[in-house]
């Protein structure tokens, strides 16, 4: 991302933001509410476009790629884990059906990778608990074999007892599938646990990017 800027409803959300994510790494974005973390993720898979600056994927401006194929490779898992009407299976199969690559085995593998069992597949997705919905939305993303995952607070609202478990699941499938992850969190401890590098975002721009070992929390993002 080079010099990315975005203004929404007369408020500058992203301001001359530049950041590079290396292949295969988990980079967490930390920062206070309203610092532009979610907006940045939405720009990366083109749910919105930045007003200025460029975002490149494999050295190509993402605007040059067909948007549907971009979203197959760079999948956003939004914070609210919205479940589409129907079963868990319907939800996980949704992306596959869209891209014409339906595969029952991959659906089963995805739900297991996301930390649930196959028995969930027939359940009504809208009636799951918050934590289960988070996992289904992860499985839904995994099922279309993305290269990059954009995770927006993937453990937000999850019972603290299972939070570490979900983190562990994510780290495992990221390694297994060799994914690159841009992970938004407001939880510094989580950022330290899960990431290779931590980018500190404030007022729409990156203050610094540090490796997890050198990251020092100064209490003010």
């Amino acid at each position: 991302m080079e010099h990315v800027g975005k203004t929404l409803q007369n408020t500058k959300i992203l301001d001359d933001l530049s950041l590079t994510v290396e292949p295969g790494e988990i980079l967490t974005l930390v920062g206070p509410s309203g610092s532009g973390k979610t907006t940045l993720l939405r720009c990366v898979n083109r749910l919105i476009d930045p007003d200025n600056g460029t975002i490149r994927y494999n050295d190509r401006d993402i605007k040059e790629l067909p948007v549907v194929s971009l979203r197959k490779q760079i999948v956003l898992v939004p914070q609210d884990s919205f479940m589409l009407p129907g079963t868990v299976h319907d939800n996980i199969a949704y992306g596959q059906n869209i891209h014409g690559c339906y595969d029952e085995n991959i659906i089963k593998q995805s739900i297991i990778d996301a930390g649930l069992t196959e028995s969930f597949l027939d359940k009504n997705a809208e009636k799951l608990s918050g934590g289960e919905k988070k996992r289904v939305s992860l499985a839904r993303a995994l099922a279309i074999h993305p290269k990059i995952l954009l995770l927006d607070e993937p453990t937000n609202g999850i019972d603290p007892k299972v939070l570490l478990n979900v983190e562990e699941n994510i780290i495992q499938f990221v390694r297994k599938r060799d994914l690159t992850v841009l992970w938004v969190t407001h939880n510094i401890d989580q950022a330290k646990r899960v990431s290779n590098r931590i980018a500190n975002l404030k007022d729409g721009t990156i203050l610094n990017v540090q490796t997890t070992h050198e990251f020092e929390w100064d209490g003010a993002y």
Partner: protein
Amino acid sequence: MGIPYTWQEGLIILAVASILLIIVILISMYKKLDIGGEFVYAIIKGGGQLFIIALFLTLLFNTEFWYILIWILIGTMILVGGYTSAKRATHMPKAYQVTTPAILSGAALSLIVLAVSRAMPLEPQFIVPLSGMAFGNSMAICSLTMERLIREINLNKSAIETMLSLGASSKQSLEPFQRLTIRAALIPTIDRLKTLGIIFIPGAMAGLLIAGTDPILAAEYQIIVYLMIVGGGIVTALITTGLSRKKLFTDYEQLENWIYEL
């Protein structure tokens, strides 16, 4: 047959009828319903329009150039209908680009079928009221569709973005809400169809009865007219939701900015 008094005598009856309206306005003021002003405005505007159209029709029925006037009348119906429905979608930029063709196609389809089937002889006394019904109904359905569609999109931004993030096209992500919207917009039409003759005697039949037509023939005619108009209404709803897609999404399968500002 027909109305058993002259128009001058009618003015007295109109004054009597207005007493009821005044009572309604007084009640609404007492109850602080805050609709009194709008009600008076609507009555004056609506009444004024009816008198103007009456004068226009008097001219129309008495000139050999009636077909020119009919085209002017239909053109006005298209523009006013498109503009009125577009106002239901205040935030959508240039919404008339959706509403005008949608109303035109639905109403034109019903009128063409009515004309071809000989239910509407090409004479002004048939064309004018039937056009009014067809355009009026299409406009009502178009307004309902616009209002409902925008509400659905606004309420379901998360669902739509979830589908888009997984690679769905704007068409695919809009489809479930188009279905919901069309169904909802047609509910009043279907309910009216179900209760035809029970809750109210519809316009065409009422007119025919007042003019002395045999009730069976009047009912049959009303059904023919109604079916054509319902068909036109469905076409209007379909075209409204279809054309709206271009206003709701960018060319890059993103929701348009104005939706986030709702």
